């Protein structure tokens, strides 16, 4: 099967996957006791008011009808609905929160990949048992530390000694500046360039350092491990020995033979890690008050706000599908065997 077919079948599969997931979520959320209306203040609100609220959300309809409506609105109208209490379009909320999560995901991936690749290459270059053991211990230890634990410790250190901002994505004042731009992308770095405010960009960078480090360190455990194993594996291939037999210097061997071939498994793993990354982001966002999708979905679950949960899940599924698609396409560039 050619790459094109693969990509296409993945594309076609995505809505199906989203559909399956949404059905699962629907069932999950609807068997929960409580609905968004019960989130209203514990006051003596008249029953008729509550009933009207339920009706507004369609919660009075039979379950199957709700299911049909909901699938219909997502797949046919591309409408993610409104939050139950504020009645804000979920798509609006997601649009404002997604960039934050993407920023965090990218920044922490950079940290993780940088650490992983550096350590992986190091072990390949200096085939010493000590370095190898150190790297493997590092990857296990780092993997064992929950994000929120790293986060908590980092926060303390940073607030006490480094003076880095420890919560949030941007100073509130700067946030307002960017949000009132006539045209904005939602991505802080880009927006601050549009606004011509390098100081805001700097403010953002200083805010993202800690959360990206916390999540990146955690992810680097897996990355280091996989890089290590992949580089180990490619370094034990015959072509490495063949390269050495031609007198290629060791750095060239490590980079052109070891690392380049390790990129393929790394990429696969990177694709699989995206779900883990987004999961880890929930905890990171909680710890660092980072207003992203993770916080949104967590609150949505606690508030029983079906629309938020369903909308976020849809987006998650689409993101994961798109990322794996991207990974598959990237394959073609890394691994010539896939090209055709």
């Amino acid at each position, binding site marked *: 099967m050619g790459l094109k077919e693969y990509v296409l079948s993945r594309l076609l*599969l995505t809505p*199906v*996957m*989203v559909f*399956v*997931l949404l059905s*699962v*979520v629907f069932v*999950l*959320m609807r*068997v*929960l006791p409580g609905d968004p209306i019960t989130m209203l203040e514990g006051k003596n609100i008249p029953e008729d008011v509550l009933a009207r609220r339920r009706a507004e959300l369609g919660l009075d309809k039979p379950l199957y009808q709700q299911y049909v409506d909901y699938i219909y609105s997502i797949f046919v109208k591309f409408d993610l609905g409104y939050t139950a209490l504020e009645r804000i379009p979920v798509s609006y909320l997601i649009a404002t929160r997604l960039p934050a999560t993407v920023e965090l995901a990218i920044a922490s991936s950079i940290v993780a990949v940088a650490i992983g690749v550096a350590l992986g290459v190091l072990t390949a270059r200096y085939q010493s*048992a000590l370095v*190898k*053991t150190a790297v*493997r211990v590092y990857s*296990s*230890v780092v*993997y*064992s*530390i*929950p*994000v*929120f*634990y790293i986060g*908590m410790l980092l*926060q*303390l250190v940073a*607030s006490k000694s480094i003076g880095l901002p420890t919560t949030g994505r941007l100073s509130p004042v700067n946030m307002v500046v960017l949000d009132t731009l006539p045209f904005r992308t939602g991505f802080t770095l880009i927006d601050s360039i549009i606004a011509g405010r390098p100081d805001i960009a700097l403010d953002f960078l200083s805010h993202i350092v800690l959360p990206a480090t916390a999540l990146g360190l955690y992810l680097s455990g897996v990355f280091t491990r996989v890089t290590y194993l992949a580089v*180990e*594996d490619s370094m*034990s291939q015959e072509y490495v020995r063949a390269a050495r037999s031609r007198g290629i210097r060791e750095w060239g061997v490590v980079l052109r033979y070891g690392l380049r071939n390790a990129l393929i498994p790394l990429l696969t793993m990177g694709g699989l890690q995206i*779900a*883990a*990354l*987004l*999961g*880890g*982001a*929930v*905890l990171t966002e*909680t710890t660092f008050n980072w207003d992203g999708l*993770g916080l949104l*979905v*967590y609150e949505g*679950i*606690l508030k029983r706000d079906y629309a938020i*949960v369903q909308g*976020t*899940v849809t987006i*998650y*599924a689409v993101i*994961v*599908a798109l990322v*794996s698609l991207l990974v598959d396409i990237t394959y073609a560039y890394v691994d010539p065997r896939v090209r055709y």
Partner: protein
Amino acid sequence: MRLPRGFGEWGILVGGLLTAIFVAMAIASTFVTIGNATESYVVVDGRRVEVPPLMPPGYTLEVGGKRIVFLMGTDQLGRDVFARVVGGARFVLTIAFLSTAISAVVGVLLGLLSGYIGGLFDRAVSLLMDSMYAMPGLVLAIAIAALLGVGVLNISVAIAVVYIPSYYRMVRGVVLSLKSSPFVEAARVAGAGPWAIVAKHVLPNTMPAIVSLLPVSFADAIITEAGLTFLGLGIEPPTPDWGFDLNKGRQFFLAGYWWIGVFPGLMIVLSVLGFLMLGEGLNEVMNPRRVEA
């Protein structure tokens, strides 16, 4: 006796040791009371004595000539942090064990069936599993934990659901590759039916993969459990639990009462590390990558 050699053997030693300590803690806390893990008082000579809250590690309480040492200090209610940390082992390990068992059994069964039966069944189950896999695990676990509410079994199920796809995918992959392997074909030529083949040839050969996944997913379960209870899901205080206590400790961390959260956090790290190392060690010793025969 010789010293362990290589990462694998050291992994088994260190990991095994850590694991043993935690299992011992879990078992110990089932049978003996270590300290006031769930109450703010200690009973001395039949008398209740309230323990002052927020005392630093090493705090010593003298009552009626007796000295009670609080190795890791006391928490915001005057409970013994050390006792809670030890008690937490039981809760956490039970959940990790249950959830790993559930996900392994369900995942392996589904994987076997799917891989062997193939066809429409395989497609349907694979689609479901892939969809679940595409979902950030923690989010799924949060949703299910919120659905099921508190309780050991509930939180175990919430975690288990997340890891079923891992087992499923792995086993299915192995089954698919085994299905066309020459020794399975040889069995078919010998006249064996599908069940005999699965039982005698397929299942035993998925074992190494399953066994090497077990400690890792056990470690993952601990982390996920900690994540859930950190978010306040699934647990009923005053049950001691590391994730929950860490979150509690976080609320007192900045005010200088670091010991409430740091110790439970350390337990999470060490127990996860223990199982990971054990897993890696076992994996390396069982499936040596390079022939060093």
